[in-house]
């Protein structure tokens, strides 16, 4: 009789080579991120105490991370790749939760749940995923019209911001702070990013190419409040691809490499086993009638796919 106990006993007999075979085949035996971070820090401190690693290096680690993030952003911005530019929501606004519920409804049109949707509505998803010690929720999609007082790195952005945003919240399951930086409201400490993806297209196209460069937005806005990280991801220029299906990748890095996201057999984006800190990929519930094939062709023809050549994937739509 093949019982659960028997299976447990059989599995315990596997040796290191068997385990490597399983992991090579994609079985995930990895430790969670929280454990990894805790143990790594402990090992490095132990090494430092025993003279194996200079303390200065450890102390500089957080600072280095912040600088690295800033440098990546600077490079991306300087090269015209707007995808990873980060905006901060204005601090003079009331809590962002209230913006979700759109009590401050002057600038936002309320979105409705899928089951309440009528023609023309933009709908919310309210999907939650618990992964790697984080709870990630796709709160929904909002339409921002003439959104004023947006700041970028503390500098006021001239003009109004309008667009369609996917809204995601992220919390740590242990209730800890969602930022690693000193300044709770500063994006420099954030290690969580998000990117909209068009189903069927390789991720570098989605991330670096399809983002429109002339838009002031087209980016992710971050905001943290009471250990909740809010991400507002501009999907405005992705809406014309609504017929292909849109997804939103949320990951524990400021930016991912193209090899970390692949496509499943249906062309739906999935994290690959190379993903360093995958959190969730949500399907975005957008109205297919927003599709605009002419605009799709225009975007594909006009966008400078600046990083395509340096990344493993090329522009190869699957359909």
């Amino acid at each position, binding site marked *: 009789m093949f019982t659960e106990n028997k299976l447990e006993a059989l*599995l315990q007999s596997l*040796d290191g080579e068997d385990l490597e075979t399983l992991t090579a*085949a994609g079985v995930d035996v990895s430790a969670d991120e929280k454990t990894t971070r805790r143990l790594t820090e402990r090992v490095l401190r132990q090494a430092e105490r025993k003279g194996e690693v200079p303390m200065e290096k450890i102390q500089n680690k957080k600072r280095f991370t912040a600088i690295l993030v800033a440098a990546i952003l600077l490079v991306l911005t300087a090269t015209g790749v707007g995808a990873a530019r980060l905006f901060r929501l204005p601090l003079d606004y009331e809590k962002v939760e209230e913006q979700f519920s759109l009590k401050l409804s002057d600038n936002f049109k309320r979105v409705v749940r899928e089951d309440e949707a009528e023609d023309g509505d933009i709908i919310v998803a309210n999907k939650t995923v618990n992964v790697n010690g984080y709870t990630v929720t796709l709160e929904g999609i909002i339409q921002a019209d003439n959104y004023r007082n947006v700041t970028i790195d503390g500098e006021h952005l001239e003009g109004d911001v309008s667009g369609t945003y996917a809204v995601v919240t992220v919390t740590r399951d242990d209730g800890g702070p969602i930022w690693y930086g000193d300044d709770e409201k500063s994006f420099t400490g954030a290690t969580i990013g998000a990117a909209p993806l068009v189903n069927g297209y390789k991720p570098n196209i989605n991330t670096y190419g399809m983002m429109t460069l002339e838009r002031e937005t087209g980016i992710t806005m971050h905001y943290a409040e009471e250990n909740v990280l809010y991400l507002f991801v501009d999907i405005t220029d992705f809406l014309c691809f609504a017929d292909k299906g849109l997804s939103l990748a949320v990951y524990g890095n400021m930016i991912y490499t193209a090899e970390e996201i692949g496509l499943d057999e249906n062309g739906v984006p999935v994290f690959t086993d190379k993903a360093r800190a995958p959190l969730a990929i949500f399907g975005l519930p957008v109205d297919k009638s927003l599709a605009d094939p002419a605009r799709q062709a225009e975007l594909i023809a006009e966008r400078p796919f600046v990083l395509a050549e340096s990344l493993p994937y090329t522009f190869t739509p699957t359909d």
Partner: protein
Amino acid sequence: MDRSDLLALLRLDPEKGIEAIIRAYGALAQKTVRQTGGDALCEEDREEIVSDVFYRVYVSRDRLDESKGTLASYVITLSRRCAIDRLRTKTRRGGEALPLEDAVLPSPEDAETAVLKKEARQRLVSAVIALGEPDATIVFRRFYFAQSYAEIGLKLGLTENAVTKRCRRALEKLRRSLREGE
């Protein structure tokens, strides 16, 4: 990252390398230490031992010889050895006599499975892989790491209920698959 690259990364950039190795083998080390030490080791002991295991990997990075076995085998062996050392130390310190044999020696059932022939193990590995993802990971985490359905769900982004159902179905599939292979 390919597992074969882990040692190369460890040598090239020890800090990043050890983090990658801990991510890849941390759960394995935790499980081995827990299994070896049993209840004789408290949570803090286990954490220290696992940390010690990876510290040893870190400092011996230039001496590790990949031709003599996989990194997983090395982590398992080191974890067992470190756990046994800790149990011995605790015993020597004059505390209560620890049930060392019970904790360290394999049970009769373990001994029986320890002689499972390599082909049988390979058949089991193939059957688990054939479950496909995420079922293979669910079964492995449930029956190798002894993780709860909730823990597995958290790791894989699935609800506890979904994990429970998938696990039940996968187990049945595995049962059929192994029966056919006999």
